[in-house]
């Protein structure tokens, strides 16, 4: 672990203890395979040293909302927020177990995975209505941001008046176009990052402190 991360953690813990700020629950939402768990893991690892969940190329690897509590993030100007991060299953309007067979699963495993995924999406929607104070909406910057599920989800988040940051992930890939995401959702801050490489992740932390603080 490098000295910078250790220093950041100590400073965050000190500020949290000193100011006793009220915690916000920030949900990471978005379509399947946008990189939500990779982001949750990176945030948790950077500020607590622990992971949140498993990452896989198979859609719906995350099938339950997973909460990581007491993550204290400090911005460059010393401002500090303490949040719970909730990593949620990818939101969709359709799930077919046959899609999992393509990844080498047998039918029984695929059916169980599909059932768990449906329960996970329903649970994620419930969390959004009841238990979330802010949202990071995660999009794969190589995909079309105008998909109906994204339009619906942003509308739902806006109607609940929740603060939202749109995270344009996978900017390390050649087809990535964060600009397309900016033009799709001009009313919200968009932060382009690569979760995998950690590119621009500090910009995201700054925006989180500013937006959710």
């Amino acid at each position, binding site marked *: 672990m490098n000295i910078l991360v250790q220093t950041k953690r100590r400073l965050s813990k000190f500020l949290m203890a000193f100011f006793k700020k009220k915690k916000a629950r920030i949900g990471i939402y978005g379509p399947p395979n946008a990189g939500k768990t990779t982001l949750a893991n990176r945030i948790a690892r950077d500020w607590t040293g622990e992971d949140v969940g498993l990452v896989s190329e198979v859609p719906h690897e995350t099938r339950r909302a997973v909460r990581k509590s007491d993550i204290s993030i400090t911005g460059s100007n010393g401002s500090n927020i303490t949040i719970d991060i909730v990593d949620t299953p990818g939101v969709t*309007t359709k799930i077919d177990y046959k899609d999992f067979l393509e990844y080498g699963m047998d039918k029984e495993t695929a059916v169980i995975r599909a059932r768990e995924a449906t329960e996970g999406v*329903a649970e994620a*929607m419930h969390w959004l209505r009841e238990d979330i104070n802010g949202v990071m909406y995660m999009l794969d910057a190589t995909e079309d941001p*105008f998909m*109906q599920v994204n*339009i*619906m989800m942003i509308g*739902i988040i806006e109607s609940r008046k929740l603060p939202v940051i749109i995270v344009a992930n996978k900017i390390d890939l050649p087809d990535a176009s964060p600009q397309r995401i900016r033009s799709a959702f001009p009313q919200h801050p968009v932060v382009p990052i690569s979760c995998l490489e950690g590119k621009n992740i500090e910009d995201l932390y700054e925006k989180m402190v500013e937006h959710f603080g």
Partner: protein
Amino acid sequence: MQGIQIDLISSEKLAALTSMEKIHLILDHVRKGSIIILEKGLSPDEQSTLIEMTMREILPDGFNGIEIETYPSRDQSPGFLQKLLGRSAIESRLTVIGPANQLRMIKKEKDIISAWVSTR
């Protein structure tokens, strides 16, 4: 003769239904293989509940979810009462909903939705 049933539901009919009645109406029709066209779309809360209830209805080798498309909503200038209550007015627009295994959206523009429907 094989075919697809398309149900066009007027805004008056929708206005007379509660949110749960609308969602049950949609899911009952779509699970039977019909395409639903709503003259006016659902509110964000209704959309959220529709996603949740759709997930609870999915069965292996049966209903596997919905395809839904709507025109982008338009902000309306709020009236006096809405301003007073601090509410913004977002106009919900024509919405197409169908079974995910039969309805595919081809193209969506500001005022055109192109869809492809297959028989089961």
